[in-house]
């Protein structure tokens, strides 16, 4: 029942432990779940050695980058219920900061990433502090506005490559340069897997800490949360800062992986939309929902691209828009809610 209440339908009553009763009632099932998880992690670690074709590794990397962004979006959008349609600003700041530092000052992307994260956190505070007073669609539209303003500014800034974008310097491949050439993408695979794992472990920890209950209380009943003495703005900001951190990491990784960035691929509104769609489809306010959503989206995108050719026919988004509508109307808990529903009956 508790799990049913996650997602769009609103989370569990704050203070009520999540999932535990079921596990306690069925220890065998809990152990099975743990074993399945361990097996899955081992599979992910072995993946680049089992599937050595560049295409297979590329798809896995794409899924992880997108899952990282969706997991990050989910921290504010899913747990605190503040729908940001401008998270692309953090992705853009992450990508542009490390790229500019790398290209013009030969700063290692790892250090550049830390600077990008710091700037993203500052930006999250600057945007969130005033905007978190707004509710629902006012906030959503405000974040669209911030994203579009940054897009317009970057498109008009020559130092940042304007509309043309920036080509990253091709340096000898090494971990310090976060550049790996050739067809083997194993190193990229492990980097992004580690980033995603960091984000998911953080979310797992939040879910089980007091913080998670504060977040859900803010989503479910802001006035009640305030009455209980929770500083709403502070916790919303904290969620937003975490979200910004992981999105900026994704930005730096993207820049190093593709070795080319431009406003359309990093600060465009469609980037924000994609992050949010993946989380919503998979199931917001859940640990695995955004990852499932990302896996489904990338599978749809890549298979339509293969079947129809990359002519920009937007079939993937067509299917995706339809699915999100259907999810919002019929299955507010997303795919993960659907899976859990089937699991319980079966």
């Amino acid at each position, binding site marked *: 029942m508790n799990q049913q209440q996650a997602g769009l339908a609103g989370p569990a009553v704050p203070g009520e432990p999540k999932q535990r009763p079921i596990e306690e009632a069925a220890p065998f099932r809990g152990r099975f779940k743990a074993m399945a998880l361990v097996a899955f992690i081992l599979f992910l670690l072995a993946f680049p050695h089992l599937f050595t074709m560049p295409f297979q590794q590329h798809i896995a990397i794409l899924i992880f980058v997108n899952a990282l962004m969706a997991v990050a979006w989910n921290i504010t959008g899913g747990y605190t219920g503040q729908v940001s349609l401008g998270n692309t600003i953090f992705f853009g700041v992450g990508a542009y900061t490390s790229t500019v530092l790398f290209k013009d000052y030969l700063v290692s992307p790892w250090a550049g990433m830390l600077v990008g994260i710091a700037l993203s956190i500052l930006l999250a505070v600057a945007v969130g502090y005033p905007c978190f007073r707004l509710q629902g669609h006012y906030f959503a*539209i*405000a974040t669209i506005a911030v994203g579009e303003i940054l897009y317009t500014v970057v498109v008009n800034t020559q130092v940042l490559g304007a509309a043309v974008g920036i080509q990253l310097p091709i340096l000898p491949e090494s971990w310090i340069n976060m550049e790996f050439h050739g067809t083997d993408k194993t190193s990229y695979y492990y980097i992004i897997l580690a980033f995603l794992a960091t984000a998911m472990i953080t979310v797992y920890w939040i879910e089980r800490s007091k913080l998670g209950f504060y977040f859900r209380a803010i989503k479910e009943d802001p006035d009640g949360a305030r009455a209980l003495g929770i500083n709403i703005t502070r916790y919303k900001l904290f969620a937003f800062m975490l979200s910004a951190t992981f999105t900026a990491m994704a930005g730096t990784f993207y820049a190093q992986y593709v070795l080319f960035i431009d406003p359309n691929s990093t600060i465009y509104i469609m980037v924000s939309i994609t992050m949010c769609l993946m989380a919503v489809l998979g199931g917001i306010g859940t640990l695995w929902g955004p990852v499932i959503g990302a896996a489904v989206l990338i599978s749809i995108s890549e298979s339509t691209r293969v079947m129809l050719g990359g002519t920009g026919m937007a079939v993937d988004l067509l299917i*995706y828009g339809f699915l999100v*509508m259907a999810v919002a109307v019929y299955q507010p808990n997303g795919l993960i809610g659907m899976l859990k529903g089937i699991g319980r009956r079966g």
Partner: protein
Amino acid sequence: MTFDLLAQTLVSGVLIGFVFALVAVGLTLIFGMMEIVNFAHGEFLMMAMYASFWMWSLFALDPLVSLPITTLALMLMGAVTYKLIIKRILNAPMLAQIFATFGLMVFLRSLAQFLWTPNFRVIQHSLVSDVRLEVGSVFVGLPQLVAAMGAVLTFAFIYWLVEKTETGRAMMATAEDRDAAALMGIDSERMFTMAWAIGSGCVGVAGALLSTYYYIQPEVGAVFGITTFVVVALGGFGSIPGAFVAGILVGLVQVFAGLIIGPSLKFAVVLAIYLLVVLMRPQGLLGKF
């Protein structure tokens, strides 16, 4: 800045402002009725423009001649959207409401791209194109003038419909208190459907008028959609007179920003206004709450 330039900019701003007002009144009407923001509103406009384009391209119908058909088609689209999607999320949490119309936005935009490619299309030689009027030293394109006049007339009609007729009062009563209105024998279901039909109809008229001079492509709704949010926020969500005043203001801001700091940055200025308004005066200029 010379006087001529000032007058010219002023006129263009007001003319496009009237069109913004008409698009915005559709959105604000729906919001006023049921507190749902239709994120796909700009995409409805895009659909109307494509409807005009295809009737011109396939049947040689001028956009102004086919305007009633476009309007009816959009009204139907609005009503169907209400029946299929909105009706089911009326009492859902706000997140579900945001995502439902948001999903519709993504769906319609990519549908247009899928069916009609991302190419820019233009309707050449409509009844009004290629004519320019000269009043004193100010030039006014006939398409822009006709669009503005059509928008003002439609806006006046909507205002009359909502404020002065029995049906309009029934709609306002439903907006005020759904249950009480139902006790007075008002079918709230019918009123909501009508609000969506009328709100989308406004976009139908606006799309047909715009298609005589504006480029048509799948993402045209994005720019108009976001501008419309700004207009509605500035005027006050749910306020019809507010939409009119705010439409003209945003039109003026856009052209003056384009003139002073450059056309490529004018959109950023319009968006900055949204942020200023919602943060400093969330109820908008003429908002009720």
